[in-house]
């Protein structure tokens, strides 16, 4: 995966994760153009399109569009599943997630994404494990901000 964008129906970016090195200006331009292109598509159209020289996979969940740019050899259908898995993770974490959750807790959305994907590829295929890791990290953050030697040996995965 090259990047993932989450944006609202008004075109406001809610999350942008880039896995390729691009300048801020380039990122802004790509985001703007791609968002326009996708928002212009009719609801009946398919979830895949070729844009510039990228394969784009996108899906709308309520008021949010989840959009990924993948490589030529990537399987578009499984990318849809990846997107769906991410939405499920958000849903489990926030409890019936809605756009506002992602707006007000954007950093959490990033943390969850970073436990699910790394460098554009899935690092963990078990929903349970991703959520557990996030839970533990959150605890680490809240309970032991300065003293955390106690947590050194925690192993989550079975």
């Amino acid at each position, binding site marked *: 995966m090259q990047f993932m964008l989450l944006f609202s129906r008004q075109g406001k970016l809610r999350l942008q994760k*880039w896995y390729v090195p691009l300048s801020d200006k380039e990122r802004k331009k790509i985001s703007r153009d791609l968002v326009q292109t996708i928002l212009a598509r009719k609801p*009946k159209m398919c979830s895949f399109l070729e844009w510039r020289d990228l394969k784009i996979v996108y899906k709308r969940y309520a008021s949010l569009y989840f959009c990924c740019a993948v490589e030529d050899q990537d399987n578009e259908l499984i990318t849809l*599943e990846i997107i769906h898995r991410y939405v499920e993770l958000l849903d489990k974490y926030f409890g019936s997630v809605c756009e506002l959750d992602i707006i007000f807790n954007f950093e959490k959305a990033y943390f969850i994404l*970073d436990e699910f994907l790394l460098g554009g590829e899935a*690092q963990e*295929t*078990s929903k349970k494990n991703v959520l557990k890791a996030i839970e533990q990290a959150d605890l*680490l*953050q809240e309970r032991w901000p300065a003293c955390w030697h106690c*947590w050194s040996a925690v192993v989550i995965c079975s």
Partner: protein
Amino acid sequence: MPAPIRLRELIRTIRTARTQAEEREMIQKECAAIRSSFREEDNTYRCRNVAKLLYMHMLGYPAHFGQLECLKLIASQKFTDKRIGYLGAMLLLDERQDVHLLMTNCIKNDLNHSTQYVQGLALCTLGCMGSSEMCRDLAGEVEKLLKTSNSYLRKKAALCAVHVIRKVPELMEMFLPATKNLLSEKNHGVLHTSVVLLTEMCERSPDMLAHFRKLVPQLVRILKNLIMSGYSPEHDVSGISDPFLQVRILRLLRILGKSDDDSSEAMNDILAQVATNTETSKNVGNAILYETVLTIMDIKSESGLRVLAINILGRFLLNNDKNIRYVALTSLLKTVQTDHNAVQRHRSTIVDCLKDLDVSIKRRAMELSFALVNGNNIRGMMKELLYFLDSCDPEFKADCASGVFLAAEKYAPSKRWHIDTIMRVLTTAGSYVRDDSVPNLIQLITNSVEMHAYTVQRLYKALLDDISQQPLVQVASWCIGEYGDLLVSGQCEEEEPIQVTEDEVLDVLEGLLVSNLSTPVTRGYALTAIMKLSTRFSSVNRIKKVVSIYGSSIDVELQQRAVEYNALFKKYDHMRPALLERMPIMEKTATNGPTEIVQTNGETEPSAVEPKHPPPVTQPANQANDLLDLLGGNDVVSVIQPTMPTKPASAGGELLDLLGDLSLSGGPAPAPAPSVPTSQPSFLLDGLSSPPLFNDIAAAGIPPMTAYNKNGLKIDFTFERANPNPNIAVITIHASNSTEADMTDFVFQAAVPKTFQLQLLSPSSNVVPALNQGTVTQVIRVLNPQKQQLRMRIKLTYTHKGSPVQDLAEVNNFPPQSWQ
């Protein structure tokens, strides 16, 4: 100073802004507060401030002043700080700025941290945005973690290694030992990321590929377990166990099995099993099937398996889910060449997809349909494709029309059918037809001798209906000019001949001349057609009148033609019948037949040159034919006219006085009127009377040379001698571009010393595609009567990556055979 406001509060506040200006004001205020807070080096609130900055950055506001603060957060001991710091680094830092390198040491420390979540943060950041320098410095740490028994870290290290390898491919070797027992892991996360790592290594190195082939049995086993094992709640997606892992394994198998019989055989069974047993009611099952199909088609699978794969794709085509139909069409397009017969079986379903609502699906269906057309199904397919042409979006029409012409050319069951098909395209999508199809069609019509009467009749009737579609009008005018006599004599055999008088025909043609809908090119066609009818019709006086009127037309092209035709009536009336007689059958040269239709900017010039070269006859007729070439032949040349030197040899076209002392011919400027034949320099007539220019006559083995090679633009010269005049060297330039961006608006100009004459014909295109994907060719003809050493100055102008480029160069290394 009061405590900086909390992140959530800021978000809430900003969202209350009613206008962009209000929002901007709030942001600026907060940014100022954050800046002063940073200046105070306040550790307590740094994290909060950076988080707010990240939010504002996402809204589109500049946040670069927070970059160093992110680095400070990363270096902090608090986990909260690190979390936000690393996030900030990934969002704000750019690997092209040196400041990111300051992270390297922190990451190194954190990779060795006692808490796995900190190690995880470091691995994640490195694997997401690590630059090549960072990767080089830290690869060793990653490799160490790849061998740890902690699966939480191992899986992250594997993907981090993938990133390192992508950035610094030479480091791939160092990860090899660590891959030894990656696949023996039980943990799915580690398995998945390991497969990704192995895939990356195999894709990059044939040695690695050979090395890892031995893993095929193990991969097959893992895949089998996933399929056969019972319900596993942890990895289940709609009844399928860990589809992500299954897909990745299938993809790795694809790479390992390609071009290797043994591996392919070893995976045959499991592929068949997955293909037949996977549940297809949901997208996830289809995703696995899709990957399976791709694998089957790529490896050396037995034919039964391949047929199974194509049938799966065929079933996909019938799926309600348009995404599935889309991937099916894409895959079928890839396999249609190799498994043509199997794909043919699904032809009707594919043709149905032409009616789909989705644009991407329609496009693929169209491409696939054209690929499936053959002699047996041409009639049926063409009906569907023509129907599609009628109703499709404009963006498709040009490609579809070209495709129809191509298919019709290859597989037409009869000439009449062919002509009818062409008519249909011209009348329904006439304005979208590519310009270069006009000469191709004219050639086709000329060669269908027995259909002339039918063709001209149909075209005439089409003109009566509609004169707005220029390609149609141009072809029709040309035909009427050629075969008008057949039209009025009512000789049509194929259908009911229509009654039409000479006057009616002339009315139509004159109508074209005055109509606002006609382009200048079309007007040229019409006028020439009228002129030709002077030898076919009896109403010569009317024609004379029309021609003389246009002698004072504002349009230079028309004026030029009219003046010449007038001269024909007056001084050269004795030559007129010979000049305007029927065109002979044009020969298709091997190098550039109408099969080049589909290329835009294709060999327009060469195919247009053919009509200029009737077989050489006796001298007077030779001259006469040459004049015909200038008049009739030029009709079919593309709009960019080649420059011709006017009669005084010294004038040599001082169109662009670039280089002072050298006489010169430039790029695409419209031709000044070549004057009356007898006073033409012999050069011009000789040149045109030679047999097709682009066939290789007596090239006499003159070696090609590279004339220019700079900044990725390379220009080669190849040589031929123009027969029969040995004083003329015909040079073809080939321009190619090895950079990654196209060179557009490419113009090649050349100048030669005064003792030479130079003629530059039209280029094949003015875009030199990137990465040597194609060349632009252009023909130069140099007359060198004094046999002096050939020298040339060239000027190149083009646009590259948005900026104009210009360069001058001298070419002195011409091989002696080219001018001796």
